[in-house]
């Protein structure tokens, strides 16, 4: 299994723990990840110029096409922007013409479709398979209570993703967490948005959104929150410290990227999973799992 790893803009500079853990996990799963010279997926620029955003995504897709590789994305916004471009250009001839005209004049490129794009979690759920994952668990995370955060762009819009999971009551990440032996906890604000997309535009609203979920999680007993998108992690992990200070709260909720959790269950040593880059301390969790004195 060989895939082009799509890191996007945020992960290679601000979420090195996500990148490190995914690379370690991929090694164990026997997945070869190839690094191509990808650029921005286009998502942050859709508000500015949707056609250029499509062109950016299509430029990336044409690079994957040239190497004849399917894409594995780690950021949910990247996965959505690339998948949306693939499906929209295939469905709409007029759009495809406009986007290709821009690609041709600016980059001398053309994109006519044919690249498969999947978020890493979706790939594990649909292709690698939950049962196959269960078979290779070496350190079952028994008794560890996890609160999943799906985020928004991982399975929505459902029309872009052809309903691979339910857009309002998704199950895939719950099953992936349960595969590690950990316990999945349902909570009231499970489907709330992290606010990451408007953090640059209006920090107050974004922080309030993040705080709503942290408040909810502090009322129930969970050992950690699990996320699958760098924006969500920035909002819940890095900002958790700031929100705690600003609001006089003491959340202390560890926020793990799913590959960090899976990595522990696969028997990978914690220092190979980038935990020292998690903003909120994971010490208590690692002790509970029994991998740290």
């Amino acid at each position, binding site marked *: 299994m060989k895939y082009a790893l799509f*890191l996007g*803009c*945020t992960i*290679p*500079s*601000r979420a*090195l723990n996500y*990148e*490190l853990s995914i*690379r370690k996990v991929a090694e164990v799963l026997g997945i070869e990840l190839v*690094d191509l*010279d*990808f*650029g*921005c997926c286009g998502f*942050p*620029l*859709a*508000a*500015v*110029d*949707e*056609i*250029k955003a*499509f*062109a*950016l995504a299509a*430029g990336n897709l044409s690079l994957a096409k040239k190497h004849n590789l399917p894409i594995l994305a780690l950021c949910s916004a990247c996965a959505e922007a690339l998948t949306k471009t693939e499906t*929209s250009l295939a469905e709409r001839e007029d*759009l495809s013409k406009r986007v290709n005209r*821009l*690609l041709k004049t*600016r*980059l001398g490129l053309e994109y006519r479709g044919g690249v498969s794009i999947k978020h890493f979690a979706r790939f594990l759920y649909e292709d690698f398979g939950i049962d196959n994952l269960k078979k290779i668990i070496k350190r079952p995370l028994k008794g560890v209570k996890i609160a999943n955060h799906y985020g*928004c*762009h991982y399975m*929505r*819009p*459902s029309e872009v993703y052809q309903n691979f999971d339910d*857009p*309002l009551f998704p199950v895939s990440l719950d099953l992936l967490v349960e595969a590690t032996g950990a316990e999945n906890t349902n909570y009231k604000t499970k*489907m*709330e*948005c992290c*606010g990451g*997309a*408007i953090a*640059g*535009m*209006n920090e107050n*609203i*974004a922080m*309030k*959104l993040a705080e*709503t979920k942290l408040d909810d999680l502090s009322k129930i007993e969970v050992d950690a929150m699990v996320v699958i998108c760098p924006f969500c992690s920035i909002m819940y992990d890095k900002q958790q410290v700031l929100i705690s200070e600003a609001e006089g709260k003491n959340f202390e909720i560890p926020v793990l990227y799913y590959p960090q959790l899976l990595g522990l269950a696969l028997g990978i040593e914690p220092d190979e999973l*980038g935990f020292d880059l998690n903003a909120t301390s994971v010490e208590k969790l690692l002790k509970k799992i029994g991998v740290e004195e």
Partner: protein
Amino acid sequence: MVTMTEKSIVVDVSELKSRFPRNVMKQPGGEAIQKCFQCAVCVANCPIRAIEAGYNPRRIIKMTLLGMKDRVLSEEFIWLCSVCFLCQERCPQEVRPPEVMNAIKNLAVKEGIIPPAINKLIEAFKENGRLYPIDEFAAEERDYMGLPKLSEKSNFVKKILEK
């Protein structure tokens, strides 16, 4: 400025631009705006609305359909959608409100009405081709962690973004 917490907005008929909704429909994402029948399901489950009472996607759509171009394009509220797609999944008319917001934002940018935060974002992309450059610090950190070297800037993004 229109304060969206106002109970009602008085519409000045002489200000209406009938071409505005048609222009929104011509933008990618704006195609379905005229299907909106104002049921407000989008407002009912909007997480931004729950925090900022002034944000009201139903009202933004209505103002657009009426042709209130100047007021819609110059308001900060069009930039507040967090693109969570909850309303898109629940809209009974398949209007795709987050896509409609993007179409409206694209028109605001064309008219030169760009919030400072968005201008900063555009400049960052023109400079680096990335939201965040892989600067010296990040490159060192990557190296230390044994992660592969990546190019600092992305040139093809710059080429697409040039005027």
